[in-house]
């Protein structure tokens, strides 16, 4: 074991891991975080806490992670390279570890153009792969990125993201390989709606033996409505929603669409379970945390294993 992370223990024991996410509130509202956490207690192995997602200012990922930790959940601390330089990031990493956080996800972050501060400077002192390298260096070599010694290194279980649906497709596996070479212990993928394309990606991943070097959690999202399906299909960069999913959402009356979205999500998980190299699932129920329990239950992933 590299860390004390519960997620690592679950994965190392060979269980299919389940993670979900909690977007911190846009205000000093600690109860909101606790309320979202309540829906996920005992349902998932770790809860991703997003870092100014979609480039909108929210309660810091670190603060919200600590709030969840206090409620007995296992926060998965997300960090984007968009908002701070390597000094601030390293300070937050050792700060997070000092507060009991042992699992994190290294990301570049959405461009500020999409958020509520489009006038802000994008920092990008380092990129997501260099962030992975930095966290690994801190953990395994006990060194800051600048080379100085770090006392009591943060033993972080290091995650990264992968989007099998972005272009150029042929770079998607190569970039995953780079993230693993940099030190990623686990991967959470972009939401999978196009399972055929995901399977093609996973075939290449397995052909290179990458699934043996790193745990790959397949990302899924329940679609709330036909409008949401259309929005994700046309408006979200790097998202691949096949027309048949949109048609299926359109085929049921409005009041039944949420239910249909959950069913599609459960069916997707069932199909993904059969894909070689899938080590678990990351359920991104955006502002819909209360549905996660039903999805995990219907997908036969409850109760969560005790490790």
């Amino acid at each position, binding site marked *: 074991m590299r860390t004390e992370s519960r997620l690592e223990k679950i994965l190392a024991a060979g269980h299919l891991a389940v993670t979900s996410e909690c977007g911190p509130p846009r205000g000093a509202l600690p109860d909101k975080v606790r309320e979202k956490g309540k829906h996920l207690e005992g349902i998932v192995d770790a809860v991703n806490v997003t870092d100014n997602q979609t480039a909108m200012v929210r309660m810091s990922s670190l603060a919200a992670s600590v709030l969840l930790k206090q409620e007995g959940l296992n926060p998965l601390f997300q960090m984007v390279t968009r908002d701070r330089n390597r000094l601030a990031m390293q300070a937050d990493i050792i700060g997070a570890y000092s507060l009991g956080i042992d699992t994190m996800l290294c990301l570049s972050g959405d461009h500020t153009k999409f958020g509520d501060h489009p006038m802000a400077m994008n920092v990008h002192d380092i*990129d997501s792969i260099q962030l992975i390298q930095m966290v690994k260096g801190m953990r395994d070599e006990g060194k800051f990125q600048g080379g100085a010694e770090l006392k009591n290194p943060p033993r972080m279980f290091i995650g990264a993201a992968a989007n099998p649906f972005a272009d150029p497709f042929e770079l998607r596996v190569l970039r995953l390989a780079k993230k693993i070479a940099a030190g990623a212990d686990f991967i959470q993928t972009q939401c999978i709606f196009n399972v055929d394309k995901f399977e093609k990606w996973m075939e290449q991943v397995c052909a290179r033996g990458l699934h043996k070097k790193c745990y790959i959690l397949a990302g899924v999202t329940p679609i709330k409505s036909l409008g949401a399906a259309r929005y994700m299909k046309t408006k979200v960069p790097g998202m691949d929603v096949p027309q048949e999913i949109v048609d299926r959402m359109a085929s049921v009356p409005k009041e039944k669409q949420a239910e249909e979205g959950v069913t599609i999500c459960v069916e997707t998980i069932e199909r993904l379970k059969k894909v070689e190299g899938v080590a678990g699932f990351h359920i991104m129920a955006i502002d819909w945390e209360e549905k996660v329990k039903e999805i995990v239950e219907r997908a036969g992933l409850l109760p969560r294993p005790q490790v």
Partner: protein
Amino acid sequence: MITAERKPLEELIEYLKPFKRVLLVGCNECVTVCAAGGRKEVGLLASGLHMAMLKSGTNVEIREHTLERQCDPEYVNELVSMIDGVDAVMSMACGCGVQEIARRFKDKPVFPAVNTKFMGASERQGVWSERCQGCGDCLLGQTGGVCPIARCAKQLMNGPCGGSTGGHCEIGDDVDCAWALIWERLKALGQEERFVEITPAKDWRPGGGAGPRKIIREDLAE
């Protein structure tokens, strides 16, 4: 080249309102090439300003002059004979030229007539786009001659983010994904293996992180 765009007329008028005689100075280098502040633009702006200000009842005398190179003290010296006859200078050069005039003529107000934009190249007639951010440690040799610092919206040094779609950047269809371009070049050159290597965190000191930059060439410096 350094690219620039003319500021709105209203902003320039505000600058010049308090003055009677103004020297409008162009530059024959980059701003001429990108049609922002060369001899031709000096002429157009001078008459534009004069007319617009006359309309609002202000008669400003605008003298025109275009220097060979406004960022070079040798050429800026040419203005010595003209400077006493004016109350202020408006420069149509990039920020380097404006600052050279301010440095040379300490008691003369100087105003920029253009916004200096970026180091870029001409894509086609009338279109310029950013190509270089002067990071001081060129990595074009590793990236097939396409710069991810200047051309990737997130300055990613190890490949495209998850927002790259059909060769476009996630910020807009009018922006190429730098990494899609890099990958096409590497493939064409048979250098795909260059992508596999991890580019480590960049040292930003040569890129401005160590403060204002300077080049001292011992063999040339006096």
